């Protein structure tokens, strides 16, 4: 196996000063939602970390996740991808194509057997393998083949994590998530449609820094980012508590920035870091721009009722069913009264 330099060595070789390295570590700590007191430990870890090989597989997806990642503002995309990790296969980003690309993938797998990371975006069609293929290989075969020697798998985006849009009812391709198929490897889900870029890089930085996957919640999501609901961390929360709600998208409440609960905000049931990390280099997030949270980082968010239907709305049966129940009630009532009266008559006769 050829010598792999440590991250510290790489950065120094590129003329990054110690101050620059400290800055890098501070932003990494910030990214990992670790307290600033952890910076020295992070510095030490990163100094000695060896760049991992990363294989990126894209299945039934829209490339939105890759788009999102390449706009990641931290520490720098180039710095992360080209310096800290070795992105050996990504058919959208890499220059190689066709057999050459597949050869690169196999080479990376062989070289880093047992140590490489597999990143997956997109869901896997189980209905018919022909729905989605790369170089003539079905998504399923490619996934199962690639993860064999992986240290861990990161499912990027809601499609890879939970099936996402392709898996939405009626799920014509029989789309499934990575965790539905891969059972013997540690899996980190980074859902979102797309996921927050910083969260994606943070997971990589975490793996890079500590060589292991972060603590996860019940849906396999990193707790550091998915530990709180949008609602819990939303700056509009005080309006919710005060009972001030926007009733439509253009009323006074909406203009005053009141709570969007009544407009269908899924913030209370959605675990993600949008409210703190925000988007577009920390500029804003959907609620801040006046739109309710869609809950895109939750399993099957497409099928959980309308985006603009408030969370506490119930789904009652149709009016016909209720009318049917009423008719049944009348029938039962009549029968009960009739039975009672029959008993009364019988007893009167016997008495």
């Amino acid at each position, binding site marked *: 196996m050829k010598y792999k330099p440590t991250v510290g060595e790489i950065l120094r070789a590129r003329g*990054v*000063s*110690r*101050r*620059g390295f*400290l*800055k*890098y570590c*501070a*932003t990494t*700590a*910030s990214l990992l*939602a670790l*307290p*600033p*007191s952890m*910076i020295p430990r992070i510095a030490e870890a990163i100094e000695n970390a060896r760049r991992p090989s990363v294989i990126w597989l894209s299945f039934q997806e829209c490339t939105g996740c890759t788009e999102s990642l390449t706009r990641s*503002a*931290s*520490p*720098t995309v180039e*710095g992360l991808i080209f310096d800290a990790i070795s992105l050996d296969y990504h058919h959208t980003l890499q220059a190689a194509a066709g057999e050459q690309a597949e050869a690169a993938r196999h080479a990376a797998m062989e070289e880093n057997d047992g140590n490489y990371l597999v990143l997956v975006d997109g869901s896997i069609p189980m209905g018919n393998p022909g729905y989605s293929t790369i170089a003539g290989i079905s998504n399923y075969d490619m996934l199962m083949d690639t993860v064999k020697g992986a240290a861990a798998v990161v499912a990027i985006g809601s499609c890879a994590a939970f099936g996402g849009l392709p898996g939405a009812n009626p799920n014509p391709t029989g789309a499934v998530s990575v965790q539905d198929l891969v059972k013997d490897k540690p899996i980190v889900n980074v859902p979102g449609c797309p996921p927050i870029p910083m969260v994606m890089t943070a997971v990589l930085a975490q793996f890079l820094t500590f060589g292991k996957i972060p603590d996860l919640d019940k849906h396999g999501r990193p707790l550091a980012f998915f530990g709180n609901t949008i609602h819990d*961390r*939303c*700056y*509009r*929360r*005080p*309006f919710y508590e005060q009972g001030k709600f926007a009733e439509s998208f253009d009323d006074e409440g909406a*203009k*005053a*920035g*009141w709570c969007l609960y009544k407009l269908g905000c899924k913030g209370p049931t959605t675990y993600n870091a949008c*409210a*703190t*990390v925000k988007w577009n*280099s*920390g500029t*804003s997030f959907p609620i*801040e721009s006046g739109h309710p949270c869609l809950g895109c980082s939750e399993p099957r968010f497409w099928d959980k009722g309308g985006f603009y239907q408030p969370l506490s709305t119930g789904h009652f049966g149709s009016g016909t069913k209720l009318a049917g129940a009423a008719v049944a009630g009348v029938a039962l009532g009549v029968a009960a009264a009739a039975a009672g009266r029959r008993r009364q008559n019988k007893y009167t006769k016997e008495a």
Partner: protein
Amino acid sequence: MSQVDEIPVQIEATHGNVRPILNEVMHALDKLLDKGITTTIDLASLPFAPGELNELEATFGKGELSARLDALGTSRIRETTYPGVWWIEHRNVHDEVVGRYLEVTRLPEILSSQDADIMAGRARLGEQFE
């Protein structure tokens, strides 16, 4: 972008992050004076309402000292009007903010020349005499 900027933004109420931060800074200053312990507050971890960050920055204001660091993008390190309280903002090479911190210390560590860099510089200097 001028059209977007023209949209009037109303800010009716804030999340109220400013006062708790001021309070935390006050206690951090006590710790610095009594025990010499420094404190760093990562502002990225707090849910700020629109405009609230500006409010916070304005509250702390500009003090006597201000420095600019050029490493992996620029960083601004500025003492606030409260001596011992530093406002630190890291940017990447695209000039995007990647981290904001309030550091309560006599001098932020990142301003000191680092041993590794001193050694590297010393080595370069030595090369002149070879």
